[in-house]
């Protein structure tokens, strides 16, 4: 072995050692118990959704063999992980039980890890200022309150109580149609005078995050109700309920 070879080996070894040192240092700085930076946007729906997505990814993708668990403990953790994975998959097909399970987990993540509480929950949906609530917010609150009382008959009860299933003429259209307008939702919301506890508010927020992340968007809750069906089409000409780009029938 020549001196040249020895020098080369040393250079390679030092290179590898330097790379490992740099890698560990970088990771150390990156990951030490991430704390949530609180600013104005922290408690918006987008940020919360981002957090939920990241946490669920972490929980479902963690390599349990790295944690150093006993055989039995590993088996149980695997089962729990599989259960969550199955629910995350099942809820996208509209399984109501899987949806409940995923929502329970989102609820816990937000209240226990993300620090959502009575003081900051209104940053996501302005529960305290009804004038700032959108038609979708109001509808979500209404359907939540009715669901608590009537279960999957909530929508039917709401329509029955306020006689919403009638033909009406809408501004800008020549033919009458069966439609529930923003104005009607606002009126019902005012009449109902719903008072929500923190848990209720968080449940509404959780539902909103769920429907954006895994559910069926604005029709997610409506779809679960005891109804004949939901049909939707793109609707650009006028803004009705829920979403400017979608009608809900």
């Amino acid at each position: 072995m020549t001196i040249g070879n020895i020098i080369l080996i040393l250079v390679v070894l030092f290179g590898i050692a330097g790379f490992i040192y740099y890698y560990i240092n970088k990771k150390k700085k990156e990951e030490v118990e991430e704390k949530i930076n609180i600013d104005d946007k922290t408690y918006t729906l987008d940020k919360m959704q981002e957090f939920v997505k990241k946490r669920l990814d972490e929980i479902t993708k963690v390599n349990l063999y790295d944690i150093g668990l006993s055989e039995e403990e590993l088996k149980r953790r695997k089962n729990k992980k599989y259960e969550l994975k199955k629910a995350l998959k099942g809820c996208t097909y509209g399984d109501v039980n899987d949806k409940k399970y995923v929502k329970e987990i989102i609820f816990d993540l937000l209240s226990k890890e993300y620090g959502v509480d009575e003081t900051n929950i209104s940053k996501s949906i302005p529960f305290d200022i009804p004038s700032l609530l959108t038609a979708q917010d109001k509808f979500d609150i209404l359907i939540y309150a009715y669901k608590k009382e009537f279960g999957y008959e909530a929508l039917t009860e709401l329509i029955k109580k306020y006689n919403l299933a009638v033909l009406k003429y809408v501004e800008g259209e020549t033919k009458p149609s069966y439609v529930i307008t923003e104005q009607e939702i606002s009126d019902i919301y005012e009449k109902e005078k719903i008072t929500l506890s923190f848990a209720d508010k968080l449940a509404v927020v959780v539902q909103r995050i769920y429907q954006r992340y895994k559910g069926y968007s604005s029709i997610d809750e409506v779809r679960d109700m005891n109804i004949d069906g939901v049909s939707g089409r793109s609707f650009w000409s006028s803004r009705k309920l829920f979403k400017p780009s979608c009608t809900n029938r």
Partner: protein
Amino acid sequence: MSVVTFWNSEKEETGKTMEIIAVSTYLAIEHNYKILIISTTERKNDVIKTSFWQEKKPKKNLGIFGPNRNVDMQSGISGLVRVARSNKISPEIITNYAKIVFKDRLEVLLGKDGDELEVEDLYPQIINMANKYYDLVIVDLDDNVPKDIREEIIKDSDLIVVNMSQRLKSINNFAELREENPLYKSNKVLISMGKYDRHSKYNCKNISRYLGEKKDILTIPYNTLFFEASEEAKVPDFFLRVRKVDPEDRNSFFLQEVKRASENIIYRLQDLQSKM
């Protein structure tokens, strides 16, 4: 296949949880039963937790092997409640949320972790499911469980162990309770005393006579080593150590009484099952 509920009729320290720990550890060591303890106490105040496991600091892996965050899903009642609420609970699932003391022998389902809402309503369902999987389900019924749920759990139990202290007031209150509710006079109920002092005037013989109780009154004497072990997560070690202790040893009375209590419970369960 049987549910044994430990309950105290008074809002006082009767050593109920310590009795559960002693009896279940003894049964797990000496008998071939698959036992589950269900705790209804809030986790931060739970003696069961400190008796079997030491508080572990979360491991840090420098971020090399995945994120430095808790990636476990909640265990104990808190985790199981989510499954129950989404109608996915089955007897086999319960074991995933329990902590192991002795593999295939003794497991613990710890109580709720924090201020979760509406957890108590699901206790009867969880106990019922656990009963299908384990040979013996021991319920540590706490005072914070709402009265209607408490009564439902007591009604559904195969055996109720009522704990009381050696205070005259406590004994009188239990006597009144027996007069009011015939359930407490039935064969389903055993009377027990935790932190027992055999030198007291209110010893089990005198209490039996006073209450007119024909069944054996169970006692778990105060034992310094046992109470210390429960603080240091060394209860299993303690029982394995004192298992074959000399009859002259000061711990032998404790062990003798734990044995008597455990065997009484098993005998009573078998007796009740044979009469069914």
